[in-house]
């Protein structure tokens, strides 16, 4: 992917990268002009897309996922041209929230949206997006959550309570897109209707597309995936996200959201049986989608019910085909719901994979024990740092030897991975 040479880091020789990129136009993103000689014009054009910023590590262009905490865990944000795969939790309660955060961030930043679903009409999905946290309302709203003192002056923002400093505010509401990277949202409220109407979005609702004929003869992709792929390719080509329309004065990002990919509603049976006829349909779709994304200014979020996929090999292949993989595991109905260590949280969040783009290394977070909690207005992600003592009242058990496992959190039960030492 093209690195923002002028606004990138000192890693590598930026001058040679710029000159190499200027000689040939074979960078995946054709957002540079044919003669980007490494001066400000090429660099500024990259940064000037609203709602994006270059990565600190390698100059890769990043977009926000809508959750600043998740952005930080992914190394600054989601790279443009990559796929974020969300492995849904068991009852699909929390993954739609991440999906909606992503789309809401797109509306606030002024990006174009493409929402695809086989279950809900995209217009309905957009109606349910969370509202951004606003400047004048936030003081009133946060009073109920935060039991701190408040002062009567409403224009002295930072002195009210230390908690308010942690939440950046939007300066203005209305159809003007904000240039800040990453916003906070209030899930108890709906996004204002005028913001949706001012945004540019395309919807793909599978039941409406069934009847139209196929242009490409059927290869192993299921009908739903094929139509979706053609739809995405059409939008990318027509709106010029792949650089095919150089007269467009302002470059923009296309945010693609695909909900419940792989579920039987898409016509795929990998969630139903172990030996399915068309087991390559989903993986082929992901590969072609990634090919489309790499050659255009777009980012994609996919939620997938991987807990339903019976063939573990397919999950491994899907993980290898996606760039960033985040898994949600909710405690509802499991034995962890009554575990005292987890009583403040609603579930665990696993960052299973982060891509190494243009680099040998990636920004992996050191802490692997992350949990999420759905408060009344916010979805928060926190490190589990508390070590509770549990056991009989007159004896304290201390936890030693906590093993941090990359993959095995689901397989080993929680108690099995701890060794307990009794102290009196």
């Amino acid at each position: 992917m093209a690195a923002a040479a002028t606004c990138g880091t000192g890693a590598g020789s930026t001058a040679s990268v710029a000159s190499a990129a200027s000689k040939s136009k074979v960078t995946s993103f054709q957002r540079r002009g044919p003669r980007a000689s490494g001066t400000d014009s090429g660099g500024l054009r990259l940064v000037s897309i609203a709602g994006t910023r270059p990565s600190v590590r390698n100059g890769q262009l990043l977009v926000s996922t809508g959750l600043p905490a998740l952005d930080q865990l992914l190394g600054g944000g989601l790279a443009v041209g990559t796929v974020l795969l969300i492995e849904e939790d068991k009852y699909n309660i929390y993954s739609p929230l991440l999906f909606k955060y992503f789309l809401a961030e797109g509306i606030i930043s002024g990006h174009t949206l493409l929402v695809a679903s086989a279950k809900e009409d995209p217009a309905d999905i957009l109606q349910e997006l969370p509202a951004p946290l606003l400047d004048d309302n936030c003081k009133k709203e946060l009073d109920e959550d935060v039991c701190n003192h408040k002062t009567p002056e409403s224009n002295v923002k930072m002195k009210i309570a230390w908690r308010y400093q942690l939440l950046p505010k939007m300066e203005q509401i209305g159809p003007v897109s904000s240039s800040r990277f990453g916003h906070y949202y209030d899930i108890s409220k709906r996004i204002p209707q005028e913001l949706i109407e001012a945004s540019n979005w395309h919807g793909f609702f599978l039941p409406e597309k069934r009847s139209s004929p196929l242009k490409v003869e059927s290869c192993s992709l299921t009908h739903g995936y094929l139509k979706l792929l053609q739809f995405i390719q059409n939008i990318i080509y027509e709106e010029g996200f792949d650089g095919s329309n150089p007269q467009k004065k302002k470059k923009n990002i296309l945010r693609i959201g695909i909900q419940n990919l792989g579920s039987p509603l898409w016509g795929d049976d990998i969630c139903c049986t172990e030996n399915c006829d068309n087991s390559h349909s989903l993986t082929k779709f992901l590969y072609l989608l990634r090919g489309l994304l790499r050659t255009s200014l777009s980012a994609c979020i996919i939620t997938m019910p991987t807990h339903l996929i019976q063939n573990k090999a397919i999950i491994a292949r899907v993980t290898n085909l996606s760039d960033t993989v985040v898994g949600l595991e909710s405690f509802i109905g499991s034995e962890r719901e009554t575990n005292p260590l987890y009583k403040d949280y609603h579930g665990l969040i696993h960052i299973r994979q982060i891509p190494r783009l243009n680099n040998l290394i990636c920004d992996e977070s050191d802490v692997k024990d992350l949990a999420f909690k759905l408060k009344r207005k916010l979805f928060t992600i926190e490190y589990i740092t508390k070590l509770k003592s549990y056991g009989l009242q007159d004896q304290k058990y201390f936890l030693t030897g906590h093993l941090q496992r990359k993959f095995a959190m689901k397989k080993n039960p929680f108690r099995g991975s701890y060794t307990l030492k009794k102290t009196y």
Partner: protein
Amino acid sequence: MFPELNNLLNITPDRAEQGKLTLLCDAKTDGSFLVHHFLSFYLKANCKVCFVALIQSFSHYNIVGQKLGVSLTSARERGQLVFLEGLKSSVDVFFQANEEPHPLQFLREAKPGNLQPLFEFVREALKPEENGEAAWRCPVLLVDDLSLLLSLGVGAVAVLDFVHYCRATVCWELKGNMVVLVHDSGDAEDEENDILLNGLSHQSHLILRTEGLATGFCRDVHGQLRILWRRPSQPTAPRDRSLTYQYKIQDKSVSFFAKGMSPAVL
């Protein structure tokens, strides 16, 4: 290329071996740094390289290659590197239904039979010059990665056939080298992948296997590399020599150390 890895493997760009198949295998970790190593190694060794890159885009390899000291764009311009970018060509192949053969033609088919067009592409790319003068030292085929072909619908046997044909042409006929990357699915029970991995392990001369640490994530030691020489070049050398090292990947290089001897621990 990583000088420490060259020392471990006992090779230098000046005296690269010929006729070898190297298998790169990663289990529970990312072994793509080895692909970057071999790509820059063979380009520095003045070999003609055909790179079938299915998993990442050209500019990704280019930018990492520049950190390691080779420029892929200039190598491609002077004809030393033939690059097949899988992601970009797959979109072209799939959406524009031409009838002319394309190396990734199997994407159009419902049940892909074999990888013959891909093999023809490789053979065409690495065939020696007609005028008899060898501008490059020996041809090299790099594939990143073969497990992806299984995800795209090609059978394990078809992939093994492709590797066999390539080995016969590149390693035996043209006296070149081959380097392929395969993911090891571990306990995910991917039978096709296991067939592919076992078949390749028997054919290869050198196996570099990267594994994640058994105890999980560590900031200072990123994994473990197991080097297995399967058919030693000298008959007097002991058979099937194997070494294990742990490594840490840095921004421009990888440092290797013996097990338990990480600088962070000592």
